[in-house]
């Protein structure tokens, strides 16, 4: 692979030149809470007859995030159709990442519905087989979506930096969960600031939104979803060996993943975002896994 590095670099440069010309933004307009909600995604059509790759970004970011872009380029280079949607997080035509302090009204269910729309859209575009590629919370959402959906065109998942989003060791506070449940039960929808992931007490979200994530995206649910999905589809997990989230989630998580039937690849030294030279390794692994999944499909 390393011997082919010059060729890869040349190809990358060509892609960078050609990508803007071939990529286009596609939108979908939904109606949520009585208001129109426009979804957007980068769409790069590939060779017909080959699987489409849906790549989902991490928490509060967009499809412009560097890791997502690197993975999109890898898939595109393989001649695969790539769809990289932006979760709207209840903001129409969202193009920019959100902050912890942005008003969060989105819910897990809403996210999964948006994925439903994009899968349907791909189907409409003629793609019968879809490979799901996610990064971070995007991996979690794709896993949750796949677990909760049957009869999908998905025939493989490549999940990078897959971690649970809630849990006591991950900073989720049980009293906030209780408060949110209480507020939700009392019918008070006003947003509050919560501890969630890296948002330390400033995650401004409605109780419904907050609860939808913290209740569903814990370790148990993930392992459960992983187990069920692995039984149906090949699930490849790429993890950074130096991801600091191991400190809270525990490195035993990798074994747990393997135990659930997923194949785990650890890129030693790589962070949560596979930045630096580890991006190339990520792309190498991704390319290899896409090739394998495509061959399995054939």
């Amino acid at each position: 692979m390393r011997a082919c590095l010059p060729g890869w670099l040349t190809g990358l440069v060509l892609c960078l030149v050609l990508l803007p010309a071939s990529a286009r933004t596609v939108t979908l307009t939904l109606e949520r809470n009585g208001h129109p909600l426009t979804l957007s995604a980068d769409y790069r059509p590939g060779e017909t007859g080959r699987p489409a790759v849906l790549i989902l970004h991490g928490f509060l970011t967009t499809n412009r995030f560097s890791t997502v872009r690197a993975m999109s380029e890898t898939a595109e280079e393989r001649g695969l159709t790539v769809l990289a949607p932006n979760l709207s997080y209840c903001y129409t035509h969202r193009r920019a990442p959100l902050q912890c302090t942005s008003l969060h009204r989105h819910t897990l269910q809403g996210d999964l519905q948006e994925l439903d729309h994009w899968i349907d859209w791909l189907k409409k575009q003629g793609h019968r087989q879809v490979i799901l590629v996610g990064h971070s919370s995007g991996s979690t959402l794709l896993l949750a979506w796949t677990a909760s959906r049957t009869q999908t065109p998905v025939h493989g998942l490549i999940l990078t930096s897959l971690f649970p989003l809630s849990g006591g060791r991950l900073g989720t506070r049980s009293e906030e969960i209780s408060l949110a449940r209480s507020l939700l039960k009392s019918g008070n929808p006003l947003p509050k600031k919560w501890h969630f992931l890296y948002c330390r007490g400033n995650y401004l979200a409605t109780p419904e939104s907050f609860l939808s994530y913290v209740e569903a995206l814990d370790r148990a649910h993930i392992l459960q979803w992983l187990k069920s999905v692995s039984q149906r589809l090949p699930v490849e997990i790429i993890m950074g060996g130096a991801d600091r989230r191991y400190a809270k989630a525990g490195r035993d998580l990798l074994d747990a993943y393997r135990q659930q039937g997923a194949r785990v690849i650890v890129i030693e030294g790589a962070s949560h975002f596979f930045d630096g030279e580890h991006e190339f390794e990520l792309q190498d692994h991704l390319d290899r896994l896409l090739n394998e999944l495509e061959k399995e499909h054939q």
Partner: protein
Amino acid sequence: MSWKKSISKFFPLPSMGWIGLIALINALLIGGVIAWGFKDTNELYEHHRTVLKEQAEAELESAMSHTRQILENNARALADWEELQQQFVDPSYYLFWLKQSLPTSLHWLPVTREIILYTPDGRPLRAFANQQPGLLPEQLTGAQLHASTWLRADPVENRLTALIFAPVRSPNGQLLGHVGVAYDFVRALMLYNTLRLIRLDRLRIIRDGLHPFEKWPSLVRVRVEADPVATELLKLSQRMMAILAILLIGISLFNLWLFNRLFFSPMQTIAAQFLQLHRSKEQAEQNALATMPVREMRHLGRLLSLSHNRKLRMLEKLRKSEAHFRKLALTDLTALLPNREALKRVMEKRKGEGVLILMDILHFRALNNTYGPIRGDQLLREIGQTLRQLGAHQGFHAFRLSGDEFVLLLDAPKDEAELRSLINDLSRRVAEQVPQRIDLPHIQLRTVYGVTLLDDNCDFSCALSRANAALGWSKEHNLPFTLYSSRLDDYAILLDHELVEHIIRGVERGDHLLLYRQPVVNADGAIAYYELLVRMERDERILNPAELFKVVDRRHLHTQLDTTVIRKAAELLAREEIPAGTGVSINLNVQTLMAGDLDRLTRPLLPFLGHYTIVLEILETALIEEFDQLVRQLQTLRRHGFKIALDDFGSGYSSLRYLTHLPADTVKIDRSFSEVLKTGDSKEFLVMKKSLDAIHTAGYTIVFEGIETEQMYCNARKLGVEAMQGYYFSAPRAETPTELPELPPCPPDASSP
């Protein structure tokens, strides 16, 4: 010219005036330089400030534009922000978003004060319940509906708020509404600009109200921050100049103080001491000089003191010398008596009656010549002592007047008997005591006296002239003394002081002294030479020769007269007023022959001896005095080439014995024998003829004087004389007579063989 007088009143300045003037000039110069320096630096600083102000204005304008750009970009970014646009889509959480989410977003700048969303028609997106009016308007105007920037000025709170309105459009270009953002513009200026020349914390808002952004210059006033380097340099330079001025003035004052200390005060001290010394007749002290710091000044002061002390010593010495010389000047050192000058001073001071006695020693000159001047001086000294001794008893003061003359001055009048007794006593004492004292007991010392009474109308000259007249009378009449009276007016010449002085000057200098010429004619009628006869002119008349010679005799001016005559005779010959082939004869006084330096006396005539006959005539009376010495003198003259003539032969005491030894060439027969010539055959004529024959035999030529008539001429020829002289031929004239009357042929001598 009045200004010159006005200025001259102040010059020369005193020392303190100069010090003040120099200090004033120094102060003016220093002040001028410092003022010029201050002015120049201030102008430079003001120019710098003007440039700085222009730069500051440009800097402010740039900062305003830059800040506006940043804020407008922020407003546009807000308008494009999905979260904001979502509020137009679903405004259910608008207020919540506005209050809690938006201020924490990256779009909320530190200078953002307020954000309001407006509907497309300019109304607030959602009404604010119980909300106080904010910075942004509740309703957008037509202008504000378009993208625009405004400034809200509040001079009370000194606040400047930028209001920026931007349209909010969906990605498909649909106008969703407007966003209005209020910014703290002053803070934005400070935050987004690095200002070098402006202090924004001192920005002042000077107008209120809402204005388009372009009007900002009329809303704010900023203070241009002075260039600290330039300000510091200005302060430093002015401080330096002030220090320099103080330093220069200090140095100047110090120099003046030093000048005063080193020079002015010492000079004052020296001047004061010099003045004190000038007034003092005591030796100078040098204590006051001890404090002078300049060595040269101290030295100068000491020199002044030493000079003063030396001057005092010299003055003392001079006083002593003056007293000594005064004493010498008023004392006759031979007779040891007060002299003529002393007498004159006494006479000038005295008042009232008195007696002046003029004493003369008869034949003193002969005694002096016979026994020598040493004995002569002894004689005079002893006479002086005698007079002093007698004067102490008789109450008179004795003076030596000149030569052999003494004066006795009596303050009290005396009658003739008393005077006679006094004079007799004096004559006797002199005659008896003095010869003994000088070891010449055999000589007879006789004195004669002229006496005059003194009064206030007769001064020194008058009294002396009268005494002289009386003395002359005594001598002439062989009297022991004569008391002056008016009957002695015959001696007026001697009483006429001015005439005497005129004659003396003429004799000594030659003024008005004339040489009349009378020819001496040979027997054949040719002029042999001219006798030069002394005459004196006064007031265009010729004085009586007797008067002239009386003064000469009385004043003993013989040698001076002869010297002057010889000098004028030489001038006569030099001017060739004497015909060639003739000559001149000059009368010499015996006093000149005996006492004078003949070589020096006759030196003027020596150049003419080869060309003219020069005859020196000597009176016969001279033969009685120092005959041997006279012979030696005449021999010397003859060796030089002079002819010697024995004048007035036969009138005195001469004898043939003298004649045979006398080295003379010619004998001039005295005119007293001319009576003999009036008859040619008398007994006297025959005796004369025999006498002349004897003289001829002795080798002398004979000149007969007093020829006045033709008969006398012829008879003189009968006597065989070689030459004749007299009025028959020519009277003495001022011009040289060259023409003689035609001489007649004389009848043959009957007595001749």
